[in-house]
């Protein structure tokens, strides 16, 4: 075969790759915080809210789970301006990722809330806690502990899925890879290196979440 691999371009490309990776990390950090917060509200609303809200959340979850993330992204970035909502690429990406992740984590958080025995709520109410305190201080921490592994997996999946936002010109890792390969004509090598960077990021993210979860939620988190 006449093709030989060439990684000579790599020395001049580390800056671009690092910048791209930093943007990817920023995207997933924002998405994790906003998505988890939104899904806690969503899961609580789906259990205790008025009927109309319950229905609306149910429809939202089904629509997001049964359509591709790429189409959701295009809808938000290209579709929303035609009804007057214009977003920066990076804001559109954050919004799409958050809304997509929340649809999955609403179900996960909900399962966690269901797993906390009713007696915990009753005992807290009997001790004079207000309902909101019961939820925030008693039920939620226990629920998060149960669902932590599932939540971690979902965050890692979302990080990998974020490669797609390069399609609306967000300058994250995949976008930088596209630019690099257009300049170096070394498409395979470029995507190979960037794939390995993603692998390291996803393994590192998982480890970070597990150790962070242990610290925040106590032992027994795996």
């Amino acid at each position, binding site marked *: 075969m006449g093709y030989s691999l060439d990684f000579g371009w790599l020395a001049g490309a580390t800056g671009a790759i690092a910048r791209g990776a930093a943007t990817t990390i920023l995207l997933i950090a924002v998405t994790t915080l906003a998505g988890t917060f939104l899904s806690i509200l969503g899961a609580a609303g789906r259990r205790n809210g008025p009927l109309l809200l319950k229905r609306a959340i149910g429809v939202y979850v089904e629509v997001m789970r*049964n*359509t591709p993330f790429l189409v959701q992204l295009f809808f938000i970035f290209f579709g929303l301006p035609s009804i007057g909502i214009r977003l920066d690429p990076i804001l559109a990406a954050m919004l799409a990722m958050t809304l997509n992740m929340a649809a999955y984590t609403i179900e996960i958080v909900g399962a966690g809330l269901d797993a906390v025995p009713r007696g915990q709520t009753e005992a807290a109410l009997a001790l004079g806690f207000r309902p909101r305190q019961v939820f925030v201080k008693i039920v939620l921490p226990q629920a998060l502990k149960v669902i932590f592994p599932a939540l971690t997996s979902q965050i890692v999946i979302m990080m*990998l899925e974020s490669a797609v936002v390069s399609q609306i010109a967000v300058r994250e890792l995949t976008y930088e890879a596209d630019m690099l390969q257009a300049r170096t004509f070394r498409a395979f090598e470029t995507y190979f290196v960037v794939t390995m960077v993603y692998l390291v990021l996803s393994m590192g993210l998982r480890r970070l979440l597990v150790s962070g979860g242990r610290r925040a939620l106590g032992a027994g988190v795996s």
Partner: protein
Amino acid sequence: MIEFTFWDIVRNLLLAARWTVLLSLAAFVGGSVVGMVVLFLRIAKNKWARRLASGYIALFQGTPLLMQLFLMFFGLPMLGLRIEPWTAAALGLTFFASAYLAEIWRSGVDALPRGQWDAGASLGLHYLQELRLIVLPQAFSITRAPTVGFLVQLIKSTALTSIIGFEELVRTSNAINNATFEPFTVYGLVALIFFVMCFPLTQYARRLEHRATAR
């Protein structure tokens, strides 16, 4: 300038959706075949075979599908294979699916009590017979819900092949959008078509899951 009516848009999208369906089926069938091989390695008695399969699964589950598709698209020509978007898309999704399916089915094999293997051995079955007659049928049956769930994920994943130039639903919708400037309608319709394909399967997976937990 060609004028697109609403029905022209719908008709073109539905025609393109055939390719989405076909690609999903090809990847699911291909992924099942390769996934079986990975599963055999993953549960083999040889330690190195198990490690190899674990590494394969970790690699595909730890990197973005988009990168896998790019590597397929740009890597295969280096091996001297002539590559078209369809080949790269089908192969890329096949390997992607094989890793996930192997892992799903392995969880089924692991869930079976040890006694099933012992019983098979005491009946005088050798390893392959045990797998074929006792272990795999049960493992497939208890993992039917996650397998259908993964099929939904696979159908949605075909959207990414538009980026390497395969003419499926999303790529066609991009072209229509560029001609009509009606992104709200076009992408809304694309989402609707995907929803119609995926939602029944999601419901089916949910029913299977309920049946499994009720038992």
